[in-house]
C-alpha cells in the first residue's frame, strides 16, 4: 500500500470573536493519495478554510491546530513563513476560484509564469521562458507565444483559469488544491479545465483536492468525496456511490437540486438537524480504499 501524500488528523481552525473562539474547522481528518479527492459543502462549512490551513494561509489571529499534518511523513503544521514558502507553490499549489483576482493585472502572463517558475526552480530566464511555453501548451492554449505577451484583461475567464493552472503546475507540485476552480466558468469551458486537471492527476501522479459546492460535478469528476457540514466531515464515500449517500445531510443536498430528467412540482427543502453538528461521521472502510484506485 502506498503511503499517503498528505495525512491530516484532527485539524482545527479557530478565530477569536467577541463571543469567544469560533471554530471554522472542527477536527477534520483525512489522507490524500494520488487521487482526485472532492471536498463538498455549503458556504460556511469550512471547506475552503481546510484548504487554506493546509497551505498555511490562515493569518493571525486565526489559529490552526492539528494532531498531525504531514506531507510525505514530514510535519508541515505551523512551519515558519520561510520554510512554508519552500513548500507552498513547489510541493503544494492552489488554484483559486476567480482568475480575475489571482493574476497580477499589470504584468504580462508570460512574466508571471516565468517568475513563479524561477522562484522555485531557479535557473536562467531563457529556461523559465521555455518552461512557461511548455506549461501553456500543456493546458491547451492554442497560441502560447501570443498569450505570453498578453495582459490578464486581454484573455477570457476560461483562459485565465487555464493560465492559473499552468502557473501552479510549472514547479511540478505533488499536490494541487483547487478551490472552486470552475465555478466562475461557463459549462463548455468547465469541461476543458477539468480534462486538464484530470490528465495531470493521471499522468504525473499528482494528488488533487477539489473543493466545490457542486455535488453532481464532484460525483462525476472525483474518486472519493468528503462531505463537510459546520466545520466537520459528516460523510466520506467513493464518488461513484454519492447518489447512494447515507447521511441525511448529503441526501438532502442531492434532493434539493432540480433535475432535468426528473421533474417535480416542488423541490424538497433541507431540514437541518442539530445532531449533524456533532454526530459521528459516516465512513465506508476508508483506509483500504486509500489512494483512490488510480
Amino acid at each position, binding site marked *: 500500500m502506498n503511503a499517503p501524500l498528505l495525512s491530516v488528523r484532527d485539524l482545527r481552525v479557530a478565530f477569536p470573536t467577541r463571543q469567544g473562539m469560533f471554530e471554522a474547522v472542527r477536527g477534520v481528518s483525512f489522507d490524500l493519495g494520488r487521487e482526485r479527492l472532492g471536498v463538498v459543502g*455549503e458556504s460556511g462549512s469550512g471547506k475552503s478554510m481546510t484548504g487554506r490551513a493546509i497551505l498555511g494561509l490562515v493569518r493571525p489571529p486565526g489559529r490552526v491546530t492539528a494532531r498531525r499534518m504531514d506531507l510525505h511523513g514530514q510535519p508541515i503544521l505551523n512551519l515558519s513563513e520561510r520554510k512554508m514558502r519552500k513548500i507552498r507553490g513547489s510541493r503544494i499549489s492552489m488554484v483559486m476560484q476567480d482568475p480575475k483576482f489571482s493574476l497580477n493585472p499589470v504584468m504580462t502572463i508570460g512574466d508571471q509564469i516565468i517568475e513563479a517558475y524561477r522562484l522555485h526552480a531557479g535557473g536562467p530566464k531563457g529556461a523559465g521562458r521555455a518552461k512557461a511555453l511548455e506549461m501553456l501548451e500543456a493546458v491547451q492554449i492554442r497560441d502560447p507565444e501570443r498569450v505570453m505577451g498578453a495582459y490578464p484583461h486581454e484573455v477570457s475567464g476560461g483562459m485565465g483559469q487555464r493560465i492559473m493552472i499552468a502557473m501552479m503546475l510549472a514547479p511540478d507540485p505533488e499536490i494541487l488544491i483547487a478551490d472552486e476552480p470552475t465555478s466562475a466558468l461557463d459549462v463548455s469551458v468547465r469541461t476543458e479545465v477539468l480534462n486538464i486537471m484530470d490528465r495531470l492527476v493521471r499522468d504525473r501522479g499528482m494528488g488533487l483536492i477539489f473543493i466545490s459546492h457542486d455535488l453532481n460535478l464532484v460525483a462525476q469528476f472525483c474518486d472519493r468525496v468528503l462531505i463537510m457540514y459546520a466545520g466537520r466531515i459528516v460523510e466520506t464515500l467513493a464518488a461513484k456511490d454519492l447518489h447512494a449517500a447515507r447521511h441525511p445531510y448529503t441526501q438532502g443536498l442531492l434532493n434539493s437540486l432540480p433535475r432535468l430528467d426528473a421533474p417535480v412540482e416542488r423541490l424538497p427543502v433541507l431540514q437541518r438537524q442539530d445532531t449533524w453538528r456533532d454526530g459521528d461521521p459516516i465512513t465506508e472502510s476508508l483506509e483500504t480504499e486509500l489512494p483512490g484506485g488510480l
Partner: protein
Amino acid sequence: MLTVDDLNVWFGFAPDRVDAVQHAAFTVASGESFGLVGESGSGKSTILRAIAGLIDTWSGSIEVDGQAVTGTRRSRAFHKTVQMVFQDPYASLHPRHSVDAVLSEALKLQGMDDIDARITRLLQDVGLGRGFRFRYPHQLSGGQRQRVAIARALAAEPRLLLLDEPTSALDVSVQAEILNLLTDLRAEHGLTYVMVSHDLAVVGHMCDRLAVMQHGRILEVMDVDALRRGAGKTDYTRHLIEASAGYIRG
C-alpha cells in the same frame, strides 16, 4: 404580456461598438414562465435590463401589456406592472437601510396607502416573520436577503417579474427554498416570469418555454419538454444541454 421584436442592444461607439443583442424576438403570454439561457456574454441579462429601462442604446420594439416602451423612460404604470429581482442579494440591498425602510420606500414610491399592514403582508408572502422587519441586511443570510429583494419587487403588486439569476449566488438548499417560494408566488398572484439563468436544470424546473442564446442572438425558442429530451434544433443547444449534464471523463 410581453412582446420583444427585432431587439438590438449595443454598447460603445464604432469601431469599438459591441453588439450585445442582435435581432432578438420572443413573446411571453400572460401567466407564463419564460426562460433565457446561455453562457456568459450571450446577452441574456442585457435583454432584461433593456426591458427594465436600464439601458438606453437599443432599437427595435418592446411591448409590455400592449404598451410600447421607448428609451429608458418608463411610465408609472410600467413600474406597477413590471419589477425586477437581481442576482446578488448582497449587492442589491442598501447596507444601512433596514428591511422596514427598504419596503416602505418601495411602497411609498408606488403611492400605496396603509403601509404598515402591507409590510406585514409582504413579509408573510415571502416567508419571513414579523421579527425580520427591523433587521439590517448584514443580520440576514443570503436566502433571507433574496426574500427581502423579492418582497420589494412584490410591493408594487406587479404582474410581470424579471428575474436575473435569482438563485445563482445561493447554496443549493437555499436555492430550493427560493425556487419554491417563486413557484408559490406565481400561483397565488398569477404572475408572469421572465427568468435568466445559466443553469438549465433551474430553468427546466421553473419555466414552460425558453430561449437559447449565443453571441447576442436567440438561436431557438423551445419548450421545456424538448429541453428535458435534449432535443435542440441547433448543435450549440445540444452541446449546451450535454455539457450541463455534468462531466464526462474525456
